[in-house]
């Protein structure tokens, strides 16, 4: 199939037909920040951190969920984009305990994010209870910012089990199981593919918790 010519940050890139702007940019060595996107689970388009500007389009759109088209002119960095990303990052950090997140610190620093400018951290997500209902892993939902990778790993993306579900609205929205059942009751097969893709450390093997606690748990 013929390549798709697109311009990313002023450089001509030969993209593959059907691939996303994010993929084309990454192959061309252009870094676009992401939180929710995950190749394996298919999660995309939620966190809005990867928004980019495209000539002729009125507003920024997510690079992870937009396919390339011939002649597209893409800009991945600008003051406006930085401001948007800064706000997204600040709200995530304001609402969530991100102390074990594996990539957020770098983005917060890069975009000069200052969650404190919005006031005190919000209780909402930080007040969520930790759930221990099985022999394998813990769900520390104060650390979850609803990226949905776990849901996609459990359902469509990998496992086809759909033990996890999304419930609640607004600040109350979060990952749970249907009717808040235990994982075993919800049909979980404990593959741990949700633990694998969790970026925040909200889903964590009991062995790891135990080791971190000096074997006391």
């Amino acid at each position, binding site marked *: 199939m013929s390549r798709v010519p697109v311009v990313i940050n002023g450089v001509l890139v030969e993209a593959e037909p059907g691939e996303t702007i994010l993929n084309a940019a990454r192959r061309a060595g252009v870094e676009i920040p992401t939180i929710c996107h995950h190749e*394996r689970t298919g999660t995309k388009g939620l966190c809005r951190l990867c928004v980019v500007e495209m000539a002729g389009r009125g507003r920024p759109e997510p690079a992870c969920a937009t396919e390339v088209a011939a002649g597209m002119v893409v800009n991945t960095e600008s003051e406006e984009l930085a401001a948007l990303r800064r706000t997204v990052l600040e709200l995530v950090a304001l609402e969530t305990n*991100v*102390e*074990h*997140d*594996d990539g*957020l*610190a770098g983005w917060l620093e890069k975009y000069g994010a200052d969650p404190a400018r919005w006031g005190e951290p919000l209780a909402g997500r930080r007040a969520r209870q930790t759930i221990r209902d*099985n*022999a*394998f*892993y813990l769900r520390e939902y104060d650390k979850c910012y609803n990226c949905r990778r776990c849901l996609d790993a459990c359902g*469509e993306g*990998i*496992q*086809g089990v759909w033990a996890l579900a999304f419930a609640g609205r607004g600040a109350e929205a979060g990952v749970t199981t249907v009717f808040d059942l235990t994982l*075993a009751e919800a049909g979980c*097969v*404990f*593959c*741990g*593919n949700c*633990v*694998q893709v969790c970026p925040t*450390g909200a889903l*964590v*093997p*009991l*062995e*790891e*918790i*135990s*080791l*971190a606690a000096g074997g006391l748990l």
Partner: protein
Amino acid sequence: MTPRVQPDRVVSTVCPYCGVGCRVDLYVKDEKIYRVMAREGPPNHGALCVKGRFGLGFLRHPDRLTTPLVRREKGGALEPASWEEALDFVAERLAQIASEHGPDALYFVSSAKASNEENYLMQKLARAAAGTHNVDHCARLCHSSSTAALSRALGSAAMSNTIEEIPLSSVIVVTGSNTVETHPVIGAMIKKATRNGTFLIVADPRRVGLAEVAHLWLRLRPGTDPVLFGAMARHLVASGRYDTGFVARYAEGFEEWWESVQDYTLEYAGQVTGVPAGKIQEAAERYAAASAAAIYWAMGITQHNHGTENVQALVNLAVLAGQLGKPGAGLNPLRGQNNVQGAGDMGALPNVYPGYQPTADAAVRRRWAEFWGAPQPENPGVTMTEAFESIGRPGGVRAVYLMGEDPITSEPYQDHVRAALEELDFLVVQDILKNETYPYADVVLPAASFAEKHGTFTNTDRRVQLIRPVFKAPGEAEPDWWILSEVGRRLSRLTGRGDPEGWEYTGPDEVWEEVRRGAPNLFGGISHARLEREGLRWPCASEDVPGVSVLFTGGFYTPSKKARLLPARWRPPAEEPSGEFPLILSTGRVLYHWHGGVLSRRSALREAYPELKVEVSPADAARYGVRDGQKVWLVSRRGRIQATAWVTDRTPEGVVFAPIHFAEQPANRLTKNAYDPTSKIPSYKQSAVRLEPA
């Protein structure tokens, strides 16, 4: 913003559980594995299951064997000994029994949990140092029927497609495999393919996980497989839907096969199998019409007294439909153990040398005699099941060397196995953990686990992968390859067979180099150095090729290059349910446990699935007065075990299903020691039992 635990190191290796051969990164801190992550890329593409992810606790379990033990006199106790004493004792006793009763009085059981290099050394120990073809491994109990039928008909006994081809099949047939529990990563891939448009046909008496998502579920009566698949094939021919071009070019034996299925009409098959004739017809037509259709199967096909016929019936169907030799079309036995493919490849079988070179061929024997500098026996070896049956009989086996095998939990008719072990002159147990068989041993040799040594495993789609040590083996435990080379050197010196110096190896890579020279057609192009960079599939004859993905693209590996159609007829089971024993007992596995439970029940998996649950259909529960969750006795002509009843429509009326993982409640106390006459596999899927409230 840091991880809770900073690893001391992250070791990339291969999961030790099933034949999918998932690649894992083990996160280690303070000599403890605290996190297991899947690697991207083949074979598991970023996914794992509960066993690999959370089931490695056995590595640090107190039941690990840490020092050699020797029973210095019969009836005495097993006492700690030095490696020197234990190795000398093993070699001297084996040599003594071989000289008094002939080398065929010895039996060597290799291990599908051990590496390729170790399996190679075990069969070398039997053939070169002891002088017998009496070597086998646990594939005898799982896929020997597949090996027998596929080798005979196609010339190669392995999955003919790769895991990466699953999404390329427009029709997938899964039969006799509870894939989502026994090969969970492949099960999830098949489910995903089904969501993306693949038409899924499941033929299974049990409502297994894949049956719930199948487009077509053929709930056949246990053991009626040859009639079902024979009728599908017959219908394709009778209605002109078979691939005449493929058959003309690539098949032989059509007439004899066609004669053999004359009575297998759709209507007859409907009566015998209990599957409506219309569904059988639809399955046949969809399978044959698919652009690419693959068949996957496991123990539900093989573990019958007509297991070889069951597999042959699948071969016949695939050949007639021309569904072989292209991407996404083929025949795929899902291999159970992490290295069961490799154990066979390395010649840990009585009838073949490494690379499936037949022992019956005098030229092959001459070649290996020269290769090892040791005369090669002409007597054919016997299978493991035959060997256990022969113990105590004139001319039978008198000494058994077990590597990573626990026959008390794995062989049928446990009381019979116990009695046989009592009668042995000499038993070596080489293992990582105390198993059920170890109290019978005369010598116990403590082995290193997969996480404590180098080597290679070969997964179910023929991918050879490197394993790497994570930490040091506990106590004095040593890798199997080291133990075998030490025994080999000593035994070779005592029997005068071969050169004792031929047992000096610096490590597994040197053993592998010997494998490459011994079986160049399959492994010549695979080196440890290459495997550092990539997994490679056999056949791979030279370093400049990547290894073959799809088998049979240019014909078959038989001498005539053609596939052999052969009659595959149904036979009644060795034990029909009747009278006092009105139910069929089928045995198998559950998601959370592994085989005899030696590994999985010494990990966090134990808590998730603590005890034996027997599946009972609602109709049988009502008939025998059993409630869900109630304690029951399962009773066969050979023994009884207690279990908790799980009343569920997963199992059909007339059939109870018991997992094999529980040493205190061993399903194999009940199973019958009846075997397929060709493959010698036990018919684990059909014993007669009754159910009693406890």
